[in-house]
C-alpha cells in the first residue's frame, strides 16, 4: 500500500531548543498501525515539523490528534517549568 | 465365653461386641419382635455377618455413629440404628437394616451384637444376660476374628453392595485389607 495521504504540520516555538525538546519527547513512542503509516519529527530553526504519511485519511486523523494533544502538554510544561 | 471390648481414644464409652453363631430362625424372629417392642434387654445393634468384611470395618461404623451423635448430625433415632446405618454405603435406613440387621430369612444365621456402654458396667454381666435372654448356648458365643468375617462374606455380593467392581486391586496386598479400606471409604461418604 502506498502512503498517499500526507499531512505536514509546522509548529513555531520560541526557539530551536524548545522545538528540539518537543521532537525528542514525541519521537520514542511507536506508531500504532506502523504498516499503514509513518510519522516523522524534525526541526527547522524554531519550528517543529511533524510529517504524517498514511494509506488513508482515517489512519492519519487518529495519529495527528494524539500528537497535537501531546504537543500541547509539552508546550504547557515548557511554559510553566522552563528555566 | 467370648466377647470383645474396646475404647476409642476420643470417647469415654466402652464398645462391647459379642458374636453368636448359628442362631436359629425362631430366636432371630423373636429378637426382632423384642426390638420393635423396645424391650430394654435388647438394647443392642444387631448385625448379620454377610457384609462385614473386617473388625476395622465394623469399628469404623461404630466410631462414625458416635461422632455423628456427638455432632448432632445423626440421621437415626437411636445410636444402635445409627451404627447400622453407618455400616451401609447408602443413606436409606430400611435398606441398611435389611442388609446389615438381623437376617431371619434362613434356618440359622450369625448374630453380631454391639453395644456402647458406660465405663462402670460389667461386660461379663452384659454378655451373660444377652446369652440368657436369647436362650442360646454358650458354645455359640465365639470370638470375633477377621478370618471368621472374611469367610462369612460373599465377596461378589460385598463388592456389588459397596460398588467396588470397578476398583483396581493390587495382587500383592491382602484382598481383605483392600476391601476394608474401600468399604470404609464408601461408608464415610454415605450421604455426603
Amino acid at each position, binding site marked *: 500500500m502506498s502512503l498517499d495521504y500526507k499531512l505536514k504540520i509546522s509548529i513555531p516555538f520560541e526557539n530551536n531548543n524548545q522545538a528540539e525538546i518537543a521532537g525528542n*519527547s514525541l519521537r520514542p513512542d511507536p506508531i500504532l498501525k506502523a504498516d499503514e503509516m509513518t510519522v516523522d519529527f524534525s526541526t527547522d530553526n524554531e519550528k517543529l515539523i511533524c510529517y504524517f504519511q498514511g494509506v488513508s485519511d482515517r489512519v492519519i486523523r487518529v495519529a495527528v490528534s494524539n500528537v497535537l494533544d501531546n504537543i500541547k*502538554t*509539552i508546550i504547557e510544561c*515548557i511554559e*510553566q*517549568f522552563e528555566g | 465365653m467370648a466377647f470383645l471390648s474396646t475404647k476409642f481414644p476420643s470417647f469415654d464409652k466402652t464398645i462391647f461386641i459379642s458374636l453368636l453363631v448359628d442362631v436359629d430362625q425362631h430366636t432371630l424372629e423373636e429378637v426382632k419382635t423384642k426390638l420393635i417392642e423396645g424391650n430394654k434387654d435388647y438394647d443392642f445393634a444387631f448385625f448379620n455377618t454377610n457384609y462385614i468384611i473386617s473388625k476395622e470395618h465394623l469399628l469404623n461404623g461404630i466410631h462414625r455413629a458416635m461422632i455423628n451423635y456427638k455432632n448432632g448430625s445423626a440421621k437415626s433415632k437411636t445410636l444402635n440404628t445409627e451404627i447400622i446405618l453407618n455400616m451401609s454405603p447408602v443413606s436409606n435406613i430400611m435398606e441398611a437394616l435389611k442388609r446389615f440387621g438381623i437376617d431371619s430369612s434362613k434356618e440359622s444365621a450369625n448374630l453380631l451384637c454391639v453395644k456402647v456402654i458406660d465405663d462402670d458396667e460389667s461386660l461379663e454381666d452384659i454378655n451373660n444376660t444377652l446369652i440368657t435372654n436369647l436362650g442360646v448356648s454358650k458354645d455359640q458365643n465365639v470370638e470375633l476374628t477377621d478370618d471368621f468375617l472374611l469367610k462369612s462374606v460373599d465377596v461378589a455380593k460385598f463388592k456389588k453392595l459397596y460398588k467396588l467392581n470397578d476398583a483396581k486391586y493390587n495382587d500383592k496386598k491382602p484382598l481383605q485389607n483392600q476391601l476394608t479400606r474401600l468399604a470404609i471409604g464408601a461408608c464415610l461418604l454415605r450421604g455426603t
Partner: protein
Amino acid sequence: MTVDLDKFKKPGKDYYLALGLEGSANKLGVGVIKHNLGQLSSENRAEVLSNVRDTYITPPGEGFLPRDTARHHRNWVVRIIKKSLVDAGIKGTDLDCICFTQGPGMGAPLQSVVIAARTLSQLWKLPLIGVNHCVGHIEMGREITGANNPVVLYVSGGNTQIIAYSRQRYRIFGETLDIAIGNCLDRFARVLKISNDPAPGYNIEQMAKKGKHLVTLPYTVKGMDLSMAGILSYIEVLAKDLFSSNPKKNKNLIDEESGELITPEDLCYSLQESLFSMLVEITERAMAHVQSNQVLIVGGVGSNERLQEMMELMVNERKNGSIHATDERFCIDNGIMIAHAGLLSYRMGQINDLKDTVCTQRFRTDEVFVSWRDD
C-alpha cells in the same frame, strides 16, 4: 542488605530528591520524595515532601474509558506537578531524577503522562527512570510500614496478586485467573448504580457496613490463585433480579434465618465477605508456602477496613504474625510510590534513555530486576 546505594551520589550533596509521576489508571498522582545517604532503615526513613493526586471520576453506572482518562491526565498534569513542587518547597532543578510509571496500565493515560516526564527531563537536564507500577506499590508499602520481607497482597482495580520476594525479583505466587478484585467491585457498583465518588469500592464498603444477612455466593480458590468472574456474574444476576426497575421483574430474595428481605447493603456485605475470604485464604497459603509471617497489603482495595480486619484476624492466629497496611495516601495509586521506587533504581544506576521510555500496558512484576535488594 549489603547493597551500596550511594555509588552514584553527587559530590557535596547528602540527600537525593526524586519526582514521581503516576497515571496508569484513573488517578493522576505526582509526588516528591527525599532519601538521605545510606541504607533506608527505621532511623533513616524516606521523607515524603509532597503527594498530590487528582482522580478522574465518572457518573454512577459508568466505567472510565482510556480516552477520557488520558484527557483528564493531560489537562491536569502540569497543574498537579506544579502543586507538588510548591508543596515540597523545591524547584525542578533541585531534583536528582524524574520517575514515571512505565506500566502496567492503560496505554493512553500512561502515554499522556510520560510526555510530560520526558519534557521535564530535558528542561531540567535530569535522568528518567521508568518504574513498574506494582513494584512502586510494594516498595512504598515496605518503606511506610517497615515490613522488611513480607508476603504482599496487591489488590487494585486492575491487579490481584500475591507476591513474595526471592532472589532479586518480586515473584508472583498467586493471582486472579480472570478479573481483578477492584474491577469486580467496580462492575458490581455499576449494576447497583453506586456512586463512583470518591471511588465505587469505597461506597460499597460503606454500604457493606450496614449489611446484616449473608447471601451464599460461589467461592473459587485454586491453589494460590483465585477466580472472581463467577461470583460477579452470579451476584449481578441476583442484583438485577432484586432491584430491577421493571416492577414485574422484581424478585424478592429472603434471608432464610430471619425471614427478612435481602437489601442492596446485604449484597455489598456478602460480596465483600466472600471475596475477602478468598483473598485472605490465598494470602495465608502463600505465607505458609514461603514460611513468612508478615503480610503487606497494597493497592487501592487495600485501604478497605474490613479486608484489613480480616487479614489481621488471620495473621493473629499465626505465630509472630504481623500485618502491615498503608492508608489511602499510599494505598491508592499515587506519584510518591513511583518517586520512591524510581529513586531506589536511580541510586543503583538504573536509568532509562529517552528511547527506552515507551510505556507498556503489560509489565509483569517479576520482570523487574530488584537491584537494590540482595537479601
